[in-house]
């Protein structure tokens, strides 16, 4: 298993290099540049700015300069947010994104799995229908609308929770954003779990377990849950990476300091440094998560392990 993991890590290096290269050149193909704002800058100032960020060099030189710095762990400056370099921004913002994404991930997974199991066991009875309704809400209502509605209800009308902002160490400030993030994921996980659980409960080995007189609880705990988890686990990796990248609307509406927004805003602003920096970060996260999922898969399913 160790050598398997090692090989996977090694194969990630060329993938990373290819991704950075493609991203670097595609960005430059897009019209407009980091200094195209509402106002034309005088040519001398523009020339100064371009020289400051090496943008006056041939593209291929810029590419090798970038790769050279990257190998030393330097993600370079931001061209639009002048006060910080890209590594600073990621170092400050990423812990917030991670806190939110992991909280949402844990909550969504626990609620999703429980709800899915309860629905599967009570198939076509009222707990199942309630679940279907909650799932539909989570999937259908877009997160920016959900965020605005929760903000209005709990922040303005009821006044129970802060309507936004960040205070270090305050859990109250996390409740609404994490709810918005977690809801659609809990919904998806519960649907997956319900489906695969129903399937497993209809298999022969479950029937055998029941026929030899095992109680329903033991049947579920010993024979049904583990195989039913497989499709859910393969969703969890992409699910977590989606939580880590997909927090833009939540960050913007609640005014949180995460890095999801850099990903989108920087692309719109043609802030090459930040776009590449966040892309590289997310690339590593996705590669790592895929690896972890594969390892968990091997643990859950003996067929994968011995192949």
């Amino acid at each position, binding site marked *: 298993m160790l050598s398997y993991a090692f090989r996977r890590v090694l194969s990630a290096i060329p993938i990373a290099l290819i991704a950075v290269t493609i991203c670097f050149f595609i960005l430059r193909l897009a019209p407009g540049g980091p200094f195209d704002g509402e106002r034309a800058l005088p040519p001398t100032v523009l020339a100064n700015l371009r020289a400051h960020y090496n943008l006056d060099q041939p593209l291929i030189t810029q590419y090798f300069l970038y790769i050279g710095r990257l190998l030393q762990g330097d993600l370079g400056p931001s061209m*639009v947010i002048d006060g910080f370099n890209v590594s600073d921004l990621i170092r400050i913002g990423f812990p917030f994104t991670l806190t939110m994404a992991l909280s949402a991930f844990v909550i969504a997974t626990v609620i999703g799995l429980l709800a899915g199991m309860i629905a599967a066991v009570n198939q076509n009875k009222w707990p199942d229908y309630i679940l279907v309704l909650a799932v539909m809400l989570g999937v259908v209502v877009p997160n920016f609308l959900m965020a605005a509605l929760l903000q209005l209800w709990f922040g303005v009308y009821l006044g129970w929770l802060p309507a936004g902002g960040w205070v270090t160490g305050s859990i109250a400030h996390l409740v609404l954003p994490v709810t918005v993030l977690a809801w659609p994921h809990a919904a998806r996980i519960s649907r997956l779990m319900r489906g695969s659980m129903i399937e497993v409960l209809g298999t022969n080995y479950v029937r055998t377990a029941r026929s030899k007189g095992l109680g329903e609880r033991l049947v579920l705990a010993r024979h049904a849950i583990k195989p039913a988890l497989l499709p859910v686990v393969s969703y969890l990796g992409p699910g977590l990476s989606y939580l880590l990248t997909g927090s833009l609307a939540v960050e913007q509406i609640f005014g949180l300091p995460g890095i999801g927004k850099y990903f989108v805003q920087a692309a719109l602003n043609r802030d090459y440094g930040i776009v590449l920096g966040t892309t590289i970060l997310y690339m590593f996260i996705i590669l790592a998560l895929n690896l972890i999922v594969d390892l968990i898969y091997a643990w859950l399913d003996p067929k994968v392990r011995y192949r």
Partner: protein
Amino acid sequence: MKFTTAIKAVATAGAMALMMSTAASAVTLQLHNGADPGTLDPHRASGDWENRVIGDYIEGLLTESASAEAIPGQAESWEISEDGTVYTFKLRDGIQWSDGTPVTAGDFVFAFQRLFNPATAADYAYLQFPIKNAEKINSGEITDFNELGVKAIDDKTLEITLEASTPFFLEALTHYTAFPVPKHKVEELGDDWTKVENIIGNGPYLIKEWLPGSYVRSEKNPDYYDAANVQIDEVFYHVLEDQAAALNRYRAGEFDILTDFPSDQYQWLQDNMPGQAHVTPFLGIYYYVMNQEEGQVLSDVRIREALSTTVVRDVIGPDILGTGELPAYGWVPPGTSNYVENAYHPEWADVPYEERVEKAKALMTEAGYGPDNPLTLQLRYNTNDNHQRIAVALAAMWEPLGVNIELFNAETAVHYDALRSGDFQIGRAGWLLDYNDPSNTLDLLKTGVSQDGTMNWGNNYGRYSNAEFDSLMAQASTELDLEKRGELLANAEKIAMDEFAAIPIYWYVSKDVVSPKISGFEANPKNIFRTRWLSKSE
């Protein structure tokens, strides 16, 4: 063991309670600031959301009063030579940076040299180009910074020499490009001097914390010369670009001042929070440019006239946007200083709409277009709900003329790239005045300058060009008599507008919401309200 743990817990709780009680007695302003500041360096800043933070921690020779008039700042007085080209400033006694180092004339000299140094790459350096040799140093033509027209006579006396008399120069000195920077810190740390752990200031507030994407936090500077009159102890400048979310947080009591709100909520605000929303004329113009390059359809003045005269400007502010922006028929916003009393107002603006449409149809026929031969134009705007509403309305207004409008939207960088490179027919644009003077908008219509064989049109996206207009602008720039200068500029405005150089749509307004707890807020056309003039009652 357990006992000591308990004692520790009680002590910690007590200390926390004490901290919270002192925190509660401090007055904190929660200001909604919009976008995330790109920088805290005055030479690199470019937005009003940066100005709000920077103008609170650094003060220039002049600063803004509560109503944003230019008043003495770090300079207590000044003298201007008779020809209007030499300004001598006397600095206040006892002014200092927050690390205790005195603020000297040398800091200002250093700051201006840094502003124009090509290596600083300051976006807005051109605002101080009235200063002698500033432009040449910025373009690299002069490399000896000592030739800049800014000299320290002694630690307390600063002399600034201009290229020519500039009536708005004192006003320009309130701008952040004219702010001093701490010479000793910048020399020691370079660009890192604005990092929160290094930053020092000479203004009423000092930066304490910056959490990108969430807020900047400042505290009152006890060593500021007017600290005795500064009421607010702590300021949070909150980052929040989503206007609806900002309004929700204001309603939840988390913000004291909003610096913008969704236009469609104006009526709701007036009904439910009377007196809190302030819509104030702002020095800026929202307009459409028409590509007048040779060979372009819109180089035909008849078509430009037909288009401009059939825009029903009265409905745009009140009905389409809902915030009551005033219709614009000219090029210089009302309330601009150093200008003539009677603003430009074309005769056609008072002609009934039906007659205007008839005349416009006739003009279109003359130009060879009509119902049988419709004119198709592409209208570009940068992606935004309000821009879209107006673009759709214009397309509908021009339909009776037999003009088919194809709408095309793109994100800001792409949009302005297209305008700049002349790759458009009609395009949306806007201009907020950098300083309160008519030349700041009229300059937008000056003929471009030829550089290395290509024309650089700067912000004149429509490529409007008129020799008489250019000559009036040139005369005005050297005219010392403010009244005569105003008339020259007014004549220039009339020439450009009579030729439909662009389609002015409306004058911008600033939109603020101010909690009844806040006093000292004075709405003004620059929409600058420094925290030092505000106070808050709980």
